[in-house]
């Protein structure tokens, strides 16, 4: 007798649905339910941080260490001896771009680690939109990014950073940096879903991050760079973000850079978010 024998039950009618709880027969998930799911999952991610406070070290220490390092080690050389104050005002707005990049990288490793655990299987067998797992992650990471920015700005002010515009402009710069950072998260989620281990995520990310960060206007004005590099920095979205943020802090024309950042953020999200969500759906 072969394994393909049709069992008697197959000859007849389709089975009656087993008693199912009183949900609508439709599988669609409404907006309110979706928001509730994202809320429950964001709560999970927040509780994880509470359980593992060390996971906050990056956002707590990175802004302090990097700011001090660059202001006091490179500040004199870049801006001229004794002009560290000026350099703080140049550096700190742009550093938000760098912090955003680093925090968003952590999302990739986080997603990758989640997949090593069985809990992702449970989420994916539940009647929730699969994207809500990713969106909840992004929501919490944006929160972490806000903490990093707050500390960064506090350090900046302590070191004598000046703001020549209004608090509203500063908030605008923070918002722009958060938006761009959130769009980057989709890239790292995609990477996190594509490679085998969390270490691989970091290795791959470093390869991209170093040239992007330093080949930008975050740390020094590109005017001293050779022509070929300047072309790169001009098109580097981190330069646009740093310039926009700087303009919003100390005044000057920002419209072009702001639009550039918005365009980059939109383009990155539109391309990588659907890819990441589809990858997430199909991942086995």
């Amino acid at each position, binding site marked *: 007798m072969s394994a393909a024998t049709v069992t008697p*039950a*197959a000859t007849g009618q389709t089975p009656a649905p087993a008693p199912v709880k009183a949900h609508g027969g439709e599988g669609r998930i409404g907006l309110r339910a979706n928001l509730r799911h994202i809320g429950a*999952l964001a709560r999970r991610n927040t509780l994880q941080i509470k359980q593992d406070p060390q996971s906050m070290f990056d956002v707590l220490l990175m802004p302090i260490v990097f700011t001090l390092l660059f202001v006091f080690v490179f500040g004199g050389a870049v801006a001229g001896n004794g002009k560290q104050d000026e350099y703080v005002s140049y550096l700190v707005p742009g550093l938000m771009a760098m912090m955003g990049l680093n925090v968003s990288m952590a999302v990739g490793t986080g997603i990758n680690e989640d997949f090593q655990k069985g809990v992702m299987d449970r989420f994916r067998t539940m009647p929730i939109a699969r994207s809500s797992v990713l969106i909840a992650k992004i929501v919490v990471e944006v929160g972490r990014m806000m903490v990093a920015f707050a500390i960064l700005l506090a350090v900046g002010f302590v070191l004598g950073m000046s703001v020549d515009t209004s608090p509203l402009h500063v908030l605008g710069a923070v918002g722009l940096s958060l938006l761009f950072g959130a769009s980057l998260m989709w890239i790292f989620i995609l990477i996190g879903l594509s490679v085998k281990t969390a270490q691989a995520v970091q290795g791959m990310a470093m390869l991209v991050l170093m040239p992007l960060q330093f080949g930008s206007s975050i740390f020094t004005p590109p005017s001293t760079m050779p022509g070929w590099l300047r072309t790169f920095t001009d098109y580097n979205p981190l330069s646009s973000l740093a310039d926009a943020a700087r303009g919003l802090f100390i005044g000057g024309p920002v419209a072009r850079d702001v639009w550039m950042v918005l365009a980059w953020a939109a383009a990155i999200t539109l391309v990588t978010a659907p890819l990441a969500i589809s990858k997430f759906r199909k991942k*086995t």
Partner: protein
Amino acid sequence: MVGMTRFDKNPTGGAANAVEVRGLVKHYGETKALDGVDLDVREGTVLGVLGPNGAGKTTLVRCLSTLVQPDAGTAVVAGYDVVKQPRQLRRTIGLTGQYASVDEKLAGWENLYMIGRLLDLSRKDARRRADELLERFSLTEAAKKPVMQYSGGMRRRLDLAASMIGQPAVLYLDEPTTGLDPRTRNEVWDEVKRMVGEGVTVLLTTQYMEEAEQLASELTVIDRGRVIAGGKVDELKAKVGGRTLEVRPTDPALLPAMARALREAGLDGIAGSKVDAGEGLLYVPILSDEQLTAVVGLLGARGFGIAHIGTHLPSLDEVFLAITGEKTSDAAAGTVESAADHQREEVAA
């Protein structure tokens, strides 16, 4: 194949099928994880899917729980098609995998509350359900502790509790006791029996014959992605080997005389009866009801004092060996690597 039919011959007998799988195929490159699997689980029953590592058990469960798309074939669970109606289907199933699918960094209560919220319970109901289930699975004391501090058995119980929050119609248990010590394993079995008592349909995969025997009423044996046998647990056992009669005389000294009497009467079967002096038992292989009647009649007529008498079926270990042993001889060379079915030791904190 030993002339086994799948399930009973009566199509209208019993309840509707909660799970119907037809010709399910899933290949990973050259590996045929599922190579045309058919099976049914009747509503309110437990089907044991028995097979060695790499037989395709986990792939089967992943297909049935919408985690993996099958390459061919159909699967209908609680009336919903696995491929066409995954969202509806997810409302009716629960899954407890080989690896505890709960968040280790969260407290037990938080895990259950989160799942309640994801299943659209109100805050109040989610809280109540979390409390209820922790109580039921004897985890109330550990409610506020992060799961990483739980022992292996506690984790598995929490996992079962998590699967029960949505009151699923169909529950998949993928090797629910792999890596657990015997005491913990019994705890998990007790919980599963309780859930079945409440009317949940269960598809259980296992490589432990004892587990299938304990929990399942029907059994499908799979090997290399194919069903090689199936039926009621007792039927399957009866077909593969005969029963064994065990007799305990009032006085163990009677054992040799009893064995001799049976041999002289030609009633001890081809293999002959066996005396287990340590246990004080006589084992007689039984091939027919007539033989059984004659044996009991003879022992009674000769006036042997009998303290206990009973028959037992061969263990599932023997059943499985009988079937797969036969199968492997003509199977093709392409074996499914068993490394795919990794086992992980549960570390008790």
